[in-house]
């Protein structure tokens, strides 16, 4: 929805970008930045490995988790697709959570990042990590000895997942969609100068 209003608004306000639009530049930039084939990866290899892994896990685990797919099978859509082996999914979840902790600590302890961080940067990181944390607990029964948590972990898992999904359009999580628009506009801006970024 936000993407659509932005798009229509940009047609009137950023005419140049639309006039000069070329798929070549747009696709090449999205290709380079979706895959780790760009200048920033070369400049910050460690951070890039972590953030790429973070995003891959963030997308892959919820979609390819056997437990989630079986819900799709039971739903009215009755669709199915191959699942990740359970132990791979577990490791990916742990990797994801580890990186999330790293990102949080980096935000807190790096003078640079602390200065530029706003409340939503911390908040959304926690929101994004919660479904994974609760999902892991729910699957492994880690906290089952605390009866209240054990009984309701699945509920927490669903609620935190829903919270994250609901927040996407209203927060910077919207970059899941707007990433493509932003990159496209930058690609055209430099593309009309004859080079691809």
């Amino acid at each position, binding site marked *: 929805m936000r993407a659509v209003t932005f798009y229509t608004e*940009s047609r009137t306000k950023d005419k140049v970008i639309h006039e000069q639009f070329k798929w070549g530049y747009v696709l090449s930039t999205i290709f380079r930045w979706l895959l780790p084939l760009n200048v920033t990866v070369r400049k910050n290899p460690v951070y890039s490995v972590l953030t790429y892994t973070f995003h891959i896990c963030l997308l892959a685990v919820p979609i390819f988790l056997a437990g989630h797919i079986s819900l799709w099978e039971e739903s009215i859509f009755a669709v199915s697709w191959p699942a990740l082996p359970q132990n791979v999914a577990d490791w990916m979840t742990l990797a994801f959570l580890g990186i999330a902790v790293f990102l949080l600590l980096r935000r807190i302890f790096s*003078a*640079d990042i602390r200065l*530029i961080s706003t409340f939503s940067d911390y908040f959304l990181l926690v929101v994004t990590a919660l479904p994974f944390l609760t999902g892991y607990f729910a699957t492994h029964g880690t906290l089952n000895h605390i009866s209240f948590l054990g009984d309701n972990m699945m509920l927490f898992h669903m609620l935190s997942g829903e919270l994250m999904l609901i927040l996407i359009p209203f927060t910077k999580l919207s970059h899941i969609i707007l*990433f493509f628009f932003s990159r496209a506009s930058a690609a055209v801006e430099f593309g009309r100068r004859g080079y691809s970024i």
Partner: protein
Amino acid sequence: MSGEIIPRTIMEFLTPRLGARLKTWLSICAHCGMCADTCHFYLAHNRDPKMIPSYKIRFINDIIKKYGGVDREYLQEVYKTVYYECNMCRRCTLYCPFGIDIAMMISLLRAMLLSQGMAPQGLLAAINNYKESGNQMNISDEEWVETVQWIEEEMSEELVGLTVPIDKHGAKIMYTVNAREPKFYPQDMMEVAKIFYVAGEDYTYCSQPGWDDTNLAMFAGDVKTARTIVENIFKRADELGVQKVAVTECGHAFRAVKYEAPGWLGYTPKQEVVHSVELFHDYIRDGRIKLRHKVKEPTTVQDPCNVVRSGGLGEKNRRLAEMLSEDFRPMKLQGNYSYCCGGGGGAMPMGGEMKKYRLQSGKIKAEQIRETGAKIIFVPCHNCIDQIRDLNKEYNLGVKAIHFKEAIAELMVIPEHMKPKEQAEDDE
């Protein structure tokens, strides 16, 4: 620079200008910090977190949150950040995972300050001159035409048959200059007169406003004046029926005329805009100009942000330097990803108030130049060349900064029939 700030006026200024791109950027910046060490200010200030590009534009969201309720002191802080801490070189954009154009937002903040009567004196003076006379140095039309005629007189003594056409209808190219050239650096125009004559270029100057291609109004976010300036240029080009508009070795002028003009005007002008680097490059590549010899001393080349990163001429700029040099030594970062010299974004025309800051932020470029060990640096930009000459003194680089045209005019082969009699005899 005083008086009450009315929040409504700030919001009325900002709201219509926050297009979809800006809103997207403001809402998705993840504050990842990847832009930090791409900025020469950050590096030159010992990695001061306050110099992180994404931090510098925090004011926009803040002002919106406050519905414009800020005071003069606050705007003064904005002023310091957007003028003293950013050259709008756009290097950070190339490293941003989202491709966020910080410079564009800095530009918006500068425009907002202008709407509240705040802008550097140096830029305001230039803007007034543009409004009065159409050029930044307030040169009258008569003076300008006389200068061109004087240059023709001078140069026709050096080369037989040389003319400097003015208002020549149907010429292929309308050549435009930086108003500094007629005012302070007529040798620039003399050199280019020689080069065009030897290359057999069919060009012309125009006699009326439009001959100055600079656009300092752009740096202060004064879109109205910026538009008038480019409007003049293309009006003259239409009148003279030229196919191309050529821009002198100036960076921001090229960017304004070629890439910003369509946005300001609301249409794409029909004349192609070319930069001197392209012209010179093609002359030498195509053999229209031959060199007696190349520069023997080690050379390097400056990539002005607005010629290269925002002008797309990285390849030709480097190739031209290579064709002119026996010992070309590229900087560690050459081309689109090169560092800004610290003189861009209006830093030079801002004059004294900026000097301290630009000498400091130029440290990174100075180091890059020093590492090459070059003795000559080609600089196809008026702002860069002043800055690099200052850096040369400040950091003892031992280089000589010259425009390409100086080297070409000096080194090119003058065909026999163009040599004056005495000189031709001397040569024998």
